[in-house]
């Protein structure tokens, strides 16, 4: 029972504690008291924890952050021999808060504990940055949602770690197998990594050099692609961060392209949340080495108006032909919560040409809105610029769940491709092996299983 209350201690400490509790839980002869425990539990029984912590204190300086020690605990440690006597709640203080805010912070910490005990999904610990985000939320439900979000992130991280551990175990097994084979027959010729190979291993820096050459080429002679970051006021913090991350992904794809665009970021608000997140995503942004232009000016000041085309999914015209002379603009807008035709209104006002992607012409939609993320649109344009085949590019970059898959068409004979005219018929059912990725996963799993069974 004593163990039930330890969830707020960070995980590494916890595992050791669990083991120790199991070992010593029954003996009950704990007398040495040194150091101070820094748990934030409501129902902690100190009797078991204290001596354990004395040896671990150096590894957990503060209760919710493993790095910083700027926080000071408010309450004194309880001295009680009785098991049922409650340990009063220990509150943490953050620097730079007024008295009232400090009081509010205490209540929020209390709430966090209560939520944890009521079985809500909350993370095991919060960093200072996260606590400050919690303080900005003014309603309980908003805070619960935020905790839930953090909890999911934490679980995802944990699962990723597990997955990596399993993968490395498999790699280790394979490696051992290989070594055994080599030992059996050392004279045989084998190709591959760490074996005989005529190809040198290309490192990241070398890759980057070649990518930079292409980007520099694009900067001198290439076609610009504009990202319009004028929508910060319409987005929540989360959406702004998402926008930045999507632009980062678009940049990553652009670097790999054979013929990349020259990326332009216009209407940037240098102190806005989007730009801050973007700087986190692309650390050398703004430096000469980055090869992305960032400016606070509008695209109207930078380029001739007649060459500009705004891509907006509310537009009436369809972009049937990619024109290398045009300058395409992608709105830096993620509108999950409150979708409005903002980019549409903007280009109506500025009198720009506007176009939507030819989704209806080339693919058959299964579910979801016909809006795509920024990186998907950018990748589409990059591919179309390279080979000019809209259909191939669309099928590659639109998420699979959004499109009708070939197996749907095959299994139900009544279903015909949407258009009866040949030029609109989607022939990708034959061309694209549906469920390819799942097949790969299946193969991977069967390999895994066979290796483990050995």
């Amino acid at each position, binding site marked *: 029972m004593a*163990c*039930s*209350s330890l*969830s707020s201690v960070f995980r590494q400490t*916890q595992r050791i504690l669990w083991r120790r509790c199991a070992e010593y839980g029954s003996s009950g002869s704990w007398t040495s008291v040194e150091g101070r425990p820094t748990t934030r539990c*409501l*129902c902690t029984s100190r009797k078991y924890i204290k001596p354990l912590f004395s040896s671990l204190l150096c590894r957990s300086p503060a209760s919710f952050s493993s790095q910083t020690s700027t926080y000071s605990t408010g309450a004194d440690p309880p001295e009680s021999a009785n098991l*049922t006597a*409650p*340990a*009063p*709640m220990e509150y943490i203080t953050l620097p730079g808060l007024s008295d009232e805010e400090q009081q*509010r912070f*205490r*209540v*929020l910490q*209390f*709430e966090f*504990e*209560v939520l*944890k*005990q*009521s*079985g*809500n999904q909350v993370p*095991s610990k919060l960093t200072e940055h996260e606590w400050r985000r919690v303080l900005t939320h*003014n*309603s*309980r439900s908003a805070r619960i949602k935020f905790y*839930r979000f953090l909890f*999911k992130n934490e679980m995802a991280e944990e699962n990723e770690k597990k997955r990596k551990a*399993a993968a490395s175990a498999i790699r280790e097994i394979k490696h051992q197998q290989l070594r055994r084979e080599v030992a059996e027959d050392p004279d045989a010729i084998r190709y591959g990594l760490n074996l005989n190979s005529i190809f040198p291993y290309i490192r990241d820096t070398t890759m980057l050099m070649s990518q930079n050459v292409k980007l520099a080429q694009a900067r001198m002679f290439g076609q610009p692609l504009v990202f319009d970051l004028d929508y910060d006021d319409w987005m929540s913090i989360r959406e702004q961060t998402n926008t930045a991350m999507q632009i980062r992904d678009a940049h990553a794809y652009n670097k790999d392209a054979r013929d990349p665009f020259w990326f332009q970021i216009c209407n940037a608000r240098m102190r806005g949340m989007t730009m801050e997140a973007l700087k986190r995503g692309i650390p050398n942004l703004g430096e000469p080495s980055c090869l992305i232009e960032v400016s606070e000016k509008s695209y109207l000041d930078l380029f001739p108006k007649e060459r500009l085309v705004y891509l907006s999914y*509310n537009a*009436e015209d369809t972009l049937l032909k990619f024109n290398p002379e045009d300058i395409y603009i992608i709105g830096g807008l993620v509108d999950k919560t409150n979708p*409005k*035709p*903002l980019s*549409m*209104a903007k280009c*109506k*006002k500025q009198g720009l040409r506007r176009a939507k992607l030819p989704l209806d012409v080339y693919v058959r939609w*299964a*579910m*979801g809105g016909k809006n795509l993320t920024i990186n998907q649109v950018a990748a589409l344009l990059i591919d179309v610029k390279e080979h000019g085949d809209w259909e191939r590019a669309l099928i590659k970059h639109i998420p699979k*769940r959004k499109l*009708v898959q070939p*197996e*749907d068409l095959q*299994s*139900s004979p*009544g*279903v*015909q491709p949407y258009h009866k005219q040949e030029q609109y018929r989607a022939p990708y059912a034959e061309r694209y092996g549906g469920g390819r990725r*799942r097949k790969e996963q*299946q193969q991977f*799993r*069967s390999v*895994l*299983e066979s290796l*483990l069974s050995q």
Partner: protein
Amino acid sequence: MQRIGPLVCSSFVRQLRLNLLSWKPLGKQVKDWHFPQRMFVRNSTANQNRRQRRDIEQNIPLDNVIVAPTDASPLTELSMMPNFRRWHAILVQLCGNADRYVPSDEWDRTFKEFHDDGPARKQSFYGSMMTLACSFRYRKLGDSILDHFQTKQLPFNIAVASRYIKLLGRTAGKDSAEKILKMYESIRKHFPGDVYDVGTAENLIAGLYQTTKWKDCFSLLKMMDFTGRAGPMAVSFTMAGAFLNKDCEAAMKLVGRLREQQFSPSAVGFAAWFQYAKAVGYEAVKQMLSCIRDSEWYLPLEVVKDMKSYFESLPEYKWTGKFTTMTLKGECKACHEYMEAIVVKKQEFEELQKNFINAVIEGSDVFLHTNPQELQRYRDFVEQNKPFDVIVDGLNVAYHQGGGGGGGRDAPKRLSRQLRVVVEHLLKRKQKKILVVGRKHMLSWPSYEMGILRDKVHLFFAENTSQDDPFVLYAAMTSGLGCAFLSGDLMRDHRFKLALQDDELRKTFLKWQRTHQMELLKVHPDHTVTVKSPMKYVTTVQWTDQSLHIPYSSGLPLGLHELPSTWLCLTKATKFPNNTSNPVLLDL
């Protein structure tokens, strides 16, 4: 590793094949194909709650749960509970479908069974069981958890303690108040400084309002407002506490607060209020009813029943009460008296007209919904042709009932036919001058139908990218109070935009909308049409010198903006049977 490996995958694929085999037709079926894993919004909390709610409704019998009539619904609560399925399975294993005192050993055993789950689950075990006990009103189960904590000397748990107080507040017993106070004291001892979060404070209020310490509810409310906003339940409980202890002034303050926040008191609040008013006398009951009329609240059925018996027991007037409904024109089916008509005052209406363009059509950016040239074109058009009798939201009417079913190649034909049929129906009702607002893509609809329309009514087509509802509303308003409009749209967003400017405008708009909006209910295959006409009468408490009419919510779920159709009709025995179409309303 083996367990979660290919087995899951292959079963998934098999499931997929089975599903694929069973499909036949195209269209919608393909959309339904995707599995929950692929759901677009699977992370949304509201969505999850909705799914859980449906699950509970289908699988868990809530009829056995004995709920006091003035209490909150267990279904709503349970659907909000994290990990409900899991905890409920444990509950069923422990005590089946009935309340039971679970001995301490059994708690220990059950707890150990779930030992492997890890610390987070273990920590919330008792808290979650108490939440369930609270929602199902299992008093014995709650008591047994508390006794288990005492016998096994377990450390104090705030989630358990606060929920236990709530449970005690819900299940009336002899020693409830005493136990609540005892629990409250021990919580205060453990957490000095009276620092509580929103959830805990609400639970405490739900128990404390019945006891001698009801005044603490006020400080708890303050505490709630400190980190969030106290919900209507907490405020109603506090209000009930004040009424039960005859502190009318404090209670009326809370009533005012609820009205400001546009909430209605809960059933408990209303019950306590009426109990207080009954004790004070006839005048107080009148005052209560007038307050309810001004706030446009609806009493719950239990309170209304109580009220009926109260009025009937009054010796000097000899009231007789009946539960009835109204006709469309607002005639009471029991006493044949007409209800008060909704009147939009001229001054209010002019104010609304003045502000409408600015607040709704232009808004923050004219280009979002239209453009300046188009807006000017439309305004000129309306100025030239006004006043109209009816404005029809063309696309809304055409697409009503899916435009006569499905998509396909002849969809425009069916859509335009439906529009034409409805318009002809309106013309038959002697509504001469009709304006149909649509979008430009309707120009490609079959010329036969559109030609008929063109001959008979005025047509205006907005750009395909413009919003057409504001145009409909604008034309209806400019044509004056005699003009109605036909649309199924609730116009919530426009009302919200008005509320941003001034809350009075929103109220006026709502009143005007109720009295001027017609709704298409059904287009029958034989081309007859059923249209819901605008509302004629006010749904609030109404009082003449001979009768009293009280609308109440019967407990059946209402639509989003639906008003209750159930009334309590009280008439004095001395009343002569007459049909007064213009009742004299007394000021209470």
